[in-house]
């Protein structure tokens, strides 16, 4: 089916985009289009106007600044996948990027668009939660930041206002005793997750977990935080038993639904396993444990 008729606007500045959003009838923002184009074509979305932000060059960035890794609204999945900075310091981002969709889609789709889409199966929302990240939104009343925990309300629904544009997603720069990872179970390459877990661990000088962040994909109505598992981890030294406990707590806090890929109890078990693996990688990347080498 063709998309319904719409007007297409291509502002070149954020200010212009925001004023267009405010002045136009039922506008929709178009970023990479890798979720929106099919939605328009199935007429799940029928906006009168489409505000295409691809011409706003100032939104195309991926950099560390003021204590944050900042990802502009035009940073594509492929940009994250190819970034040396990400490969070096942001394990969970480096893990997740090549697991999002396929190469063609990663060339167009953006991390911010994916977060704005608020699909519970989206990978980036969980990574954002694990890193205690936030998004910066610009609207008619100016700029505000929305923490990851306050962003996702329902499937495909965020706390973003109608005329607000997310200009960037950002996460605090990790310190040298911090590591993160993302693990995803999928049926085949390119698929959405059956279950996914992003984990981040920060250690104190004594090798105790000072801060833990765990975000879960596709096992609740939104990307979700495994807060009980985080609480269990904080203040402890890493060990197999500790991570097993955390895996169990994450599984208990998850709410997967049975579908053609597996029943809920199977997915819960997978949350448990993926959590343990992600925590293991996070601890290893923080330099606190080493992978056991089988003789």
């Amino acid at each position, binding site marked *: 089916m063709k998309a319904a*008729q719409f007007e*297409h606007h291509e502002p070149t500045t954020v200010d212009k985009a925001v004023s267009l959003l405010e002045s136009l009838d039922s506008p929709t923002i178009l970023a990479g*289009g890798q979720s929106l184009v099919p939605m328009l074509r199935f007429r799940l979305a029928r906006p009168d106007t489409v505000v295409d932000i691809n011409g706003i060059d100032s939104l195309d960035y991926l950099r560390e600044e003021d204590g944050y890794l900042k990802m502009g609204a035009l940073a594509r999945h492929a940009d994250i996948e190819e970034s040396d900075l990400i490969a070096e310091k942001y394990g969970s981002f480096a893990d997740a990027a090549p697991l999002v969709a396929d190469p063609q889609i990663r060339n167009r789709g953006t991390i911010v668009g994916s977060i704005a889409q608020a699909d519970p199966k989206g990978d980036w929302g969980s990574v954002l939660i694990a890193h205690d990240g936030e998004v910066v939104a610009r609207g008619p009343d100016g700029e505000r930041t929305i923490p990851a925990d306050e962003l996702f309300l329902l499937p495909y629904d965020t706390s973003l206002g109608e005329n607000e544009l997310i200009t960037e997603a950002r996460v605090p720069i990790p310190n040298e005793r911090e590591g993160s990872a993302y693990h995803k179970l999928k049926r085949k390459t390119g698929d959405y997750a059956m279950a996914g877990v992003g984990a981040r661990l920060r250690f104190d000088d004594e*090798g105790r977990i000072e801060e833990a962040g765990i975000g879960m994909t596709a096992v609740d109505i939104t990307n979700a935080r495994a807060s009980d598992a985080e609480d269990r981890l904080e203040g402890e030294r890493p060990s197999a038993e500790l*991570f097993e406990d955390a895996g169990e707590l994450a599984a208990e806090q998850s709410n997967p639904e049975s579908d053609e890929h597996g029943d809920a109890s199977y997915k819960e078990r997978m949350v448990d396993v993926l959590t343990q693996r992600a*925590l293991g990688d996070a601890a*290893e990347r923080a330099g606190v444990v080493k992978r056991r080498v089988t003789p």
Partner: protein
Amino acid sequence: MTDEREITLTVNGTEHTIEVEPRRLLVHAIREDLDLTGTHIGCDTGNCGACTVLRDGEPIKSCMMFATQADGSEILTVEGMEDLPEAGGDLHPLQEGFREEHGLQCGYCTPGMLMSGKAILDENPDPDEAEIREGISGNLCRCTGYQNIVSSIEYAADKLDEKAAADGGVVAESGESDTGAEPDTDANTDAARDSAAAFDCGVENCCGGPAADSTYEHIEGPDDRFDDLNGELDRDTTEETDE
């Protein structure tokens, strides 16, 4: 509301100016307005990759982008393959590879596969099997089972490498048409023989899906790295960190 927009697309080296509605998809502009029907439409939802084209050198799914968004860009479609310098006025080595290695049956996915194959080789002239499988992971084929498609792209990589060697170690760059390095017939015969040998499709990933990890990822144990470490960890976590 018929808000037609004039856009310019340079497709396979030829500039076209067309009028399109904002809702017109790039794939429809290519197929219907420019009459280049080599680019296929399979799923229309971004899943199958039959509509893959290169836009400014980057593979994208042309059913996932509006034509207006491609205004001013350079598009390469399957029709342009033979005109590329490395084709030397004949079939492109990738096309030759698909013929030699039986990379197609019905051919529906083939244009998209060729474009993804081109993108893989543009980025890395010597890809390993996993890289090829990753590169075509956005392209579905319901006929061949991928193994022959992988072989076809490997064939092209070898062919391009041979040509580069024949050209004195330099891959033919766009602009100059490269007639000096036509594929020689001996090489073709060799390749045909090799491909006959390789045609025994006993490969584990055949028909399982395009990429190497295309079955359920094995979930065996959660993580064994702590099994032997536990006692140790309590003792010398900090030492390990400090080293």
